[in-house]
């Protein structure tokens, strides 16, 4: 197990490097929220989810919804690492004609099942998939990554209500709780705390973790899978921009990409020499 965790940690580090390089190349996209979510996305794709990069539409796969769609780079580098498409494609992020759109787009990117980018809609789609899979008697699970600012959308709570009502225990929401949104602190813009209490009140199984501690992420995902009768929310305390001190905990790096001056320092932080 120790080895497995170390393995995932190293993967996450490499994915962070890929995010920084990709965003530096595109000069457009979201840095902070991609870096805060990547440990969870990494654990999902390399530890938890059943999926098949050689057959993106494989019926037996678990489903993934990046509800906070602006963190698309985190998803794209992971899909590339899995082999869904060549890593070179990352360099085309957000360009005209590229299959890597600014926000996840199921029409063109292998491994992307739903379109996201308008915040607050992902959990409903995830629950819809969970309900459908259950109807077919399937064991497949559905995972959704949400932002804490995103929880301000009322639709999230409509989805939370519905998922608990229908006992969607094949659904797991991971809340990337980095405490920041665009205009500043989530607590100052529009307070959503306590996130855990809210999900509990809606009837969810809630697990609180440090969203950068790979061991805790893996344990939480295992617990979520074991829990029956209710959907699980993993409320993960995270740091926006995690891994690169230049970007950490700064709302100003929400939608700003690393520039030429920042790139070497960012890569150095991530232990990257190439």
């Amino acid at each position, binding site marked *: 197990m120790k080895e497995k965790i170390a393995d995932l940690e190293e993967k996450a580090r490499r994915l962070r490097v890929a995010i920084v390089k990709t965003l530096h190349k*595109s000069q*457009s*996209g979201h840095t902070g929220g991609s870096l805060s979510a990547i440990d969870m996305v990494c654990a999902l794709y390399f530890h938890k989810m059943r999926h098949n990069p050689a057959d993106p539409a494989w019926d037996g796969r678990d489903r993934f919804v990046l509800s906070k*769609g602006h963190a698309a780079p985190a998803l794209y580098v992971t899909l590339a690492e899995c082999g869904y498409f060549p890593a070179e494609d990352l360099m085309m992020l*957000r*360009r*005209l*004609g*590229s299959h*890597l*759109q*600014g*926000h996840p*787009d199921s029409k063109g990117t292998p491994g992307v099942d739903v*379109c*996201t*980018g*308008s*915040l*607050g809609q992902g959990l409903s789609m995830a629950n819809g998939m969970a309900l459908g899979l259950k109807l077919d008697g399937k064991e497949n699970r559905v995972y959704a990554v949400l932002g804490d*600012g*995103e929880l*301000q*959308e*009322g639709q999230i709570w409509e989805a939370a209500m519905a998922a608990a009502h229908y006992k969607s225990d094949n659904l797991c929401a991971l809340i990337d709780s980095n405490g920041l*949104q*665009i*205009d500043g602190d989530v607590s100052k*813009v*529009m307070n*959503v705390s306590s996130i855990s209490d809210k999900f509990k009140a809606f009837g969810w199984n809630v697990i609180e973790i440090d969203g950068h501690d790979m061991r805790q992420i893996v344990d939480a995902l295992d617990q979520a899978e074991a829990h029956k009768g209710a959907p699980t929310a993993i409320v993960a305390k995270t740091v926006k921009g995690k891994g690169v001190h230049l970007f950490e905990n700064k709302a100003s790096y929400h939608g700003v990409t690393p520039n030429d001056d920042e790139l070497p320092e960012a890569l150095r932080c991530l232990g990257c020499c190439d």
Partner: protein
Amino acid sequence: MIATRDAYGEALAELGGENDKIVVLDADLSGSTKTGVFAKKFPNRFFNMGIAEANMVGTAAGLAAVGKVPFLSTFAIFAAGRGWEQIRQSVAYPKANVKIVATHGGVTVGEDGGSHQSVEDVAIMRAIPNMTVIVPADGEETKGAIRAAAAYKGPVYVRLGRNKVPSVFPAGHKFEIGKGVVVVPGTDLTFITTGLMTAAAVTAAEKLKAEGISARVLHIGTIKPLDKEVVLQAAEETGAIVTAEEHSVVGGLGGAVAEFLAETCPTLMKRVGVYDRFGTSGKSDELLKYFGLNAETLIEEAREIVSRKK
């Protein structure tokens, strides 16, 4: 060159000093929509509603119901999209005095891609009774439009862009709701345009002149109510119309002009806009070219329509 959203920020901050009834709401995009300029000056009259557009619309309607003049802003796709039914029921139906100023309209949002490129908002706002729909051509007109919206009693939707756009109107240009403006006179055809396409049409008209084609440019800053008089005049006097907008050809300015002329004065017509497609990621200027939203397309369409005239 200034972005219409920058002009909005300035106008709002000015108006805030003149009228203490003005309140402003935003949904976690105050830096981008430029309502932050007002927020800094009048913090107690600014409400950041968080990422919750539907609630923001309803709250604005409530503020209006107790005598405030609320301006609410977010990106066009989230204002007109997320808030559509709330706008219909809580704002337009009761004729609430709410001003929806949506920024980042059209394809020039660029890299964020199709999910963020609003090419339907004018159509869906235009379909709502009681709604006034304004799409300014430049910064100067935006300032006038915001002033006019504040002075007008009732629901208004103003659609702005992200990028800097060329100036069409001189400083001090007076904006009047519901009035079209002939920017360039002409006799062979009329470009009826809105938003950033008006500047493109002025360029096209200049180039066409060298070929001996006299193109009128009629700027329609208010899509609804449409200035029927100037549109009818253009149809009768030039006999050919090319509309252009950074919006779907379905239901926007082109739709409005076509609907009106079909019933009053059927005229040779061509609509330039986004042809019933979603946007895609790319740089703004690349996208304008990709969707044919430029002077070159207007020139081609003008030649074509003039050749079809007799």
